[in-house]
């Protein structure tokens, strides 16, 4: 921790015993060191990017992209075009804190909450994460299935693809390898931009929507649902666990914080562009009464897009869904693995071998396996699970964010890297906004369901 390293270090301190994880991380750090010494700015940037882009593009996952497209199909271009970038700006504030805490303390979120605030808070956080991750992972497999259905491939292929990818990416026993493979895959999130261009949108209409108008109509509850699910499509508990854990696993240090900020900012910008692109592609269905949304469980959305804008647009959207689901399976499973192993107090790194970090790898594969099994259950309510995944994440998010802000303010841990007042003001505003939207939807829906108030 910085608080301890800030103090003058005795000159003759014996180095701690070196583990395989240390050796692998140190090898990566030696390249960073060499690039920094040689003044190779772009090489240094290349070596240090990863966790931020992966957290942001990982959150542009299957259910999120379908949610954006569904909003476009239902409401057209309007309020949500500028609202999505605003949400990613909020996500940047939260994720920058995660990166900074990970780089300064070299510890994951679950580990710090558990040790700093007590076991019960750590386990609560891990339980929240496991619940939302399981629901979200089911939705990711559904998204892959929807994408593959466009090519007449079934659930079994979706399950096999997801699970093979999980095993393949951690087979190398190195964080660097895992990160680069997933990063390479994540860039294909740009397929949504291709789909948006192929539907030939009216550029003037997109520019005209930047003034947050028209505001979506419909009932108050529908508006709350849209807000809650769109927030859940940009900031979620798994991103917090993932980015802090990955930043520590990558070996980032306080010297890398500025590069980490760039990494997170680039991720947020790309995710906002691709998210808006999915909405624009979906808006092409507006004039066709939003046809295709109801066919979510089948190949509905890409097929509807093909009908409206041609085969290329449908193919790009379908492949985008496969990519979005696959990348999210990898990042969300990884966040579960970090949380589980950190809370148990055992090795939690992609730089450890499966033998050294059994809990980490077992949690990583296990949660993906359970989610995969759910989508193979005949008659399982996959559509409802997929649509509610983001809302549940929004409802559970405020607790994770509060602890994140507390950690980032902890001078004992963070020293001079602790939050500034301006960051706290924005952070607290984000927590309040997310909390109010999630709670308002939850309470309003419950009161309507129990007929305490009319719809």
């Amino acid at each position: 921790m910085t608080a301890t390293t800030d103090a003058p270090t005795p000159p003759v301190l014996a180095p701690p015993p070196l583990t395989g994880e240390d050796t692998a991380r140190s090898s990566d750090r030696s390249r960073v060191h060499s690039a920094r010494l040689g003044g190779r700015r772009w090489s240094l940037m290349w070596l240090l990017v990863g966790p931020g882009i992966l957290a942001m593009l990982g959150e542009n996952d299957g259910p999120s992209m379908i949610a954006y497209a569904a909003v476009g199909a239902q409401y057209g271009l309007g309020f949500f075009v500028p609202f999505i970038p605003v949400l990613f700006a909020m996500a940047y504030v939260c994720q920058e804190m995660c990166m900074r805490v990970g780089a300064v303390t070299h510890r994951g979120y679950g580990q710090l909450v558990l040790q700093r605030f007590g076991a019960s808070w750590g386990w609560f956080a891990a339980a929240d994460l496991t619940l939302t991750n399981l629901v979200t992972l089911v939705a990711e497999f559904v998204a892959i299935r929807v994408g593959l259905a466009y090519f007449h491939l079934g659930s079994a292929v979706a399950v096999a693809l997801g699970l093979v990818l999980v095993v393949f990416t951690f087979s190398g026993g190195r964080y660097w390898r895992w990160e680069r493979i997933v990063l390479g895959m994540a860039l294909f999130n740009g397929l949504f931009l291709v789909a948006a261009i192929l539907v030939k949108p009216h550029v003037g209409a997109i520019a005209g929507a930047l003034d947050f108008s028209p505001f979506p109509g419909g009932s108050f509850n529908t508006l709350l649902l849209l807000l809650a699910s769109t927030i859940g499509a940009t900031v979620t508990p798994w991103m917090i666990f993932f980015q802090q854990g990955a930043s520590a696993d990558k070996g980032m240090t306080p010297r890398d914080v500025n590069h980490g900020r760039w990494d997170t900012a680039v991720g947020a910008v790309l995710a906002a562009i691709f998210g808006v692109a999915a909405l624009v592609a979906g808006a092409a269905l507006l004039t066709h009464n939003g046809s295709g949304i109801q066919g979510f469980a089948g190949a509905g959305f890409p097929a509807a897009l093909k009908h409206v804008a041609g085969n290329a647009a449908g193919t790009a959207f379908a492949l985008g869904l496969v990519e979005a689901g696959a990348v999210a399976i990898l990042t969300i499973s990884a966040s579960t693995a970090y949380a589980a192993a950190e809370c148990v107090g055992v090795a939690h790194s992609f730089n450890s071998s499966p033998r050294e970090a059994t809990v980490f790898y077992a949690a990583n594969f296990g949660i993906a396996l359970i989610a995969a099994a759910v989508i193979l259950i005949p008659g399982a309510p996959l559509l409802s699970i997929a649509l509610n995944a983001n809302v549940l994440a929004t409802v559970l998010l405020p607790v994770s964010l509060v602890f994140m802000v507390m950690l980032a303010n902890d001078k004992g841990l963070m020293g001079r890297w602790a939050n500034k007042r301006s960051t706290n003001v924005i952070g607290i505003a984000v927590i309040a906004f997310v909390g109010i939207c999630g709670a308002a939807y939850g309470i309003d829906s419950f009161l309507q369901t129990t007929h305490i108030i009319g719809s």
Partner: protein
Amino acid sequence: MKTETAASDHHADHAAAIAERDLQRQERFEDELIMHLERDQFVAETSRPVPRVALSKVATAALWGLRVFVVIVSVMVIYTFIDQLH
């Protein structure tokens, strides 16, 4: 016989020198690796728990209040979700 013994000793010395050189190389390599990690980045260091912070009563009560509120709202969302299935 003497010549054979001398040759064998020479080989043993040579092998020992190579082993020593390899060991030194390995140690130098490990030293260089260690140089690229901050001391508090080592697994041995990060495995050490950080001291627990003492939360004030107000902060503890606020955190429990938020936790209970979030659980209640989550139950509402899950109830609504199950109801919508029918």
